[in-house]
């Protein structure tokens, strides 16, 4: 074997034997560095005859290329091995539990969610949202709404009052959201299309009543809207809200001081045990009250009931929330038990809209 061949064999063996990149670099410098063994051989070419240089030079350069390639290969191998070793060192127990993020912990109360659902539906039908104060006057809460002077609702038995003022008047906590109908009609000209969600109060506290509850009211005032339109709106709303394709409704004549004619609306349902399914079955469930706005109410707002007309409806937000989402007890809505809130509440980004269905 020539010297060159044995040198090459020796170097290649050293390359193979290099345990890490530093050792490999040492081999490279020893062979191919400025003073490396192959570099030194190349320097000897200058002293040779052209013929000898041609054959000898080619041989040395070929050996150099082979060594360089072997080093590159070996470097690749060593790199992969080093990464493997590092990855192995870095391995962790991925079954350890992570902390839940705030989006998993936070909840929206069902009342807020249902108000958002109602708003989404009526916004699509062109309704705005109107609001008013919780502390009301007798005028807005009763008189303007055509309650007779002696109506029992005006008694301390039913309504929360504040202490009388010096002039004898006394404020109260609104017993329904209807005062906002009056506030709306006196502050903006028809056409009016509003929904009015809000807190309402009555002196009532038992298994199915709480002294504070939530109502949503609707009001349409213009020159032509009649009971047929009211029927359509409510049917469309009930379908959209309960997310069913069909809903049966039954309108029954009833009585409220502020509407004439007045109706109560039953919705078709199926009862099985404690569960109520809207949109199925042959039972009826009373769900809301409505009617054509009473001419006296229109007049009390400075409008002419022969010129403008319209309708209003009202229902319990807590109640329709219970019907849709199955909470058995109204009182739990206001108890703030985190177990209840986490169970019946909604996730922060569950934003109701009509694009993907209210509850998608």
């Amino acid at each position: 074997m020539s010297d060159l061949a044995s040198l090459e064999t020796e170097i290649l063996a050293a390359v193979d034997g290099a345990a890490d990149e530093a050792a490999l670099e040492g081999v490279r410098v020893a062979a191919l560095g400025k003073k490396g063994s192959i570099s030194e051989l190349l320097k000897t070419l200058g002293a040779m005859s052209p013929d000898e240089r041609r054959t000898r030079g080619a041989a040395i350069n070929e050996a150099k290329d082979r060594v360089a390639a072997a080093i590159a290969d070996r470097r690749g191998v060593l790199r992969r091995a080093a990464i493997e070793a590092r990855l192995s060192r870095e391995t962790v127990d991925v079954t350890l539990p992570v902390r839940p993020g705030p989006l998993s912990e936070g909840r929206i109360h069902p009342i807020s969610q249902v108000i958002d659902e109602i708003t989404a539906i009526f916004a699509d039908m062109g309704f705005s949202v109107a609001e008013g104060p919780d502390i009301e006057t007798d005028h807005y809460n009763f008189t303007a709404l055509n309650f007779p002077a002696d109506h029992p609702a005006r008694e301390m038995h039913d309504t929360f009052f504040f202490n009388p003022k010096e002039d004898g008047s006394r404020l109260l906590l609104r017993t329904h959201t209807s005062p906002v109908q009056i506030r709306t009609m006196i502050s903006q000209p028809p056409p009016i299309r509003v929904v009015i969600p809000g807190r309402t109060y009555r002196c009532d506290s038992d298994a199915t009543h709480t002294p504070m509850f939530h109502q949503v009211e609707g009001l349409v005032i213009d020159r032509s809207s009649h009971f047929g339109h009211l029927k359509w709106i409510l049917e469309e709303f009930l379908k959209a809200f309960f997310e069913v394709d069909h809903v049966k409704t039954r309108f029954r004549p009833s009585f409220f001081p502020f509407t004439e004619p007045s109706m109560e609306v039953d919705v078709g349902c199926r009862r099985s045990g404690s569960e109520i399914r809207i949109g199925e079955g042959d039972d009826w469930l009373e769900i809301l009250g409505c009617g054509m706005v009473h001419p006296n109410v229109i007049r009390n707002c400075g409008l002419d009931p022969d010129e403008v007309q319209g309708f209003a409806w009202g229902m319990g937000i807590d109640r329709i929330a219970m019907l849709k989402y199955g909470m058995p007890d109204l009182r739990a809505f206001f108890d703030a038990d985190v177990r209840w809130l986490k169970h019946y509440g909604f996730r922060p980004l569950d934003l109701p809209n009509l694009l993907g269905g209210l509850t998608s």
Partner: protein
Amino acid sequence: MKFTLSWLKDHLDTEASLNDVVEALTMIGLEVEGVSDPSAAIKPFTIARVLTADKHPNADKLRVLTVDDGRGGEPVQVVCGAPNARAGLVGVFAAPGTHIPGTGIDLAVGTIRGFESRGMMCSERELLMSEAHDGIIELPADAPVGTSFADYLGLGDPVIEIAITPNRPDCLGVRGIARDLAARGLGRLKPDTVEMVRGAYPCPVPVALRFPETAENACPVFAGRLVRGVRNGPSPKWLQDRLKAVGLRPISALVDITNYVSYDRGRPLHVYDAARLTGTVHARLGRAGESFLALDGKTYAVDETMTVIADDAGVLGLGGIIGGEASGSTEATTDVFIESAYFDPNRTARTGRKLGINSDARYRFERGVDPAFVLAGLELATMMVIELCGGEPSEAVMAGQPPVVVKVVDFPVSEVKRLSGLDLPIAEVRAVLEALGFGVAGFGHDLAVTVPSWRPDIEGKADLVEEVVRIIGLDAVRSTPLPRLASVSAKVLTPIQIRTRRAKRVLAAEGLVEAVTWSFVSEAQATLFGGGAPALKLANPISADMSDMRPSLIPGLVAAARRNADRGFGDLALFEVGQIFAGDRPEDQSTAATAIRRGTARLIGSGRHWSGASGPVTVYDAKADAFALLDALGFDVSKAQVVRTAPSWFHPGRSGTIQLGPQTVIGHFGELHPAVLEALDVAGPIVAAEIILEKIPQPKAKASKAKPVLAASDLMPVRRDFAFIVADDVEAARILKAAEGARKGLVGGVQVFDVFRGEHVGEGRKSVAIEVTLVPSEKTLTEEEIEAASQAIVAAVSKATGATLRG
């Protein structure tokens, strides 16, 4: 209001079934609340005769019967254990498959000790008729075998209960209900049978009205008549059955007659034992100090707001509400004075409420009885007294006049279509109104409609539309899409509504759970949080815990946290967005967004974890909630001033107020004051942040939705750290502000990355380390420029705070 089907048929000539009647009632606004058919449970039971009764060969106490069930087939074999079972007995038979109400079991064909039993002879207990179970029911030998036992008992009269809305006093009598049903097409209203009774002699009992001019409407008419020589005993079975069916207790014929007329015609009456009356029977206002023993056994004190019936000896009873014990009729009554009067609805209602008396009379008078039926009611009662108790009637006497007002409503038929959308022929509209007793005059489209005296609720056109539509049926109205006002709906929420909705979502996204707590808190809670003003106290709170309108959402949330902690859930983060009250005017109500955190419920999570425990909540958690909220609501938080002047319910050293200036406070955050927590009886730590949504300035409306062009430099920013030694009370905000202002346009941001106190720094001092980012705008910064900027920063901070650069 309760009535029976047969009672209804006294007034309504109809072939309609019970179901049709019930359905129609609900659909015309007389909502059926319940139907009880007392015969329903025993309908399948029939009358049967025992043909043979032999001792059971395998059992001492049993007999094997053959029974004729009246169906004409083979005799039925029944095994029976009753001691009285014997041949010839006529009793009540249940066929296999019958539900036995007394045992709750559906009867099946059985084999008892080797003998098949294909039915049962029943005891009274098995039919829930009584507790008797000694033997099987024995009927008279001539009881018709094969017929329904229910029919045999005469139980076939279903009871219907309807809810009467306050506008329909006319339907507090069966005849009024019949009229509505007839108008609906369920039959024909039978002619009225009330006739004038000819009096045989002048009424010896004088009557009078004695009211001041200001109270003449309290009782505008008072009529009566004497019937002498009556025999008052139990009323006949048919009358007792009807009263019992509607839940009334039969008392005596005279009293039962008044109750009957009350339910039959909605016309309350009263009967007096004439022997117990003194002088003139009159209606007047009560006087302070008067009282009487009423028929309910209680003594009531009357006053000058109440209408009483009195004689010359004193108060007899309360007009339109309840009669007195002393003048009431008894079994011994021979001469009866019958009263029929009209009492003002409002005064009747007020008196009834004041005294807490709920009577059938009050129920009717306070809704308004038919003023035109005062005398007719008297005639009807007289006819019944003569028929049931005998006696001789006097002429009627009457003081005052019935307050009958003839109301005529101009009614263009187009109103029906205008309000209901229902397009009806004029003739149909007329027919409905006439069937309901309205007088209809006029031709063509414009009608003049006379309101019947029994309908005080009808005031105008809208009421007539309701009458027509409810009788024709609301189902007849077609659903009509409401035309859109715009093709794409415009924005429907106000700025504060948008903020409210967004605030809820942001706080939930911060890991807080939304609660809805009462708008009222206890006086103590209100006072602790700056409330408790007299104007915001309820006059009639439902409990002492709910007496004052809340001045802040914090007390309600803290109370909720306490309840949860008591249940074992102490680490919790709650929020509420809702109304708070600074006064009783509408503008005093504002919307607070409030977050509280208790225990270790921090943003990163709560409690222990292998990655590190979260530690107790701090003022900075509350501050982070407040700033996250403000930022999400579009408020530039760099504009907010944070000052140490939070209200008294916060820890004075660990709380802050967020404001734009002293006059524009947006909210507060901090640890709650230990004394407040103690007063609320809850353990801390609890931190809270409360932002008043109305106080956040509304951004100015911009002409364009386009955002300004982003000026992002291609040049590398440079970061330099500075550690300052300052007095302990120097606020970080001052250091930051000085550093930010040192080189406007060059300083792009300042971060505090370390705050340190300790021996190295010295007593009463601290080290605050900041990282300043310098952002070159045109060319890369040279070392000289960076050095110059650094010196400017050090100088500015030193000048503002007395800081020295840490060596």
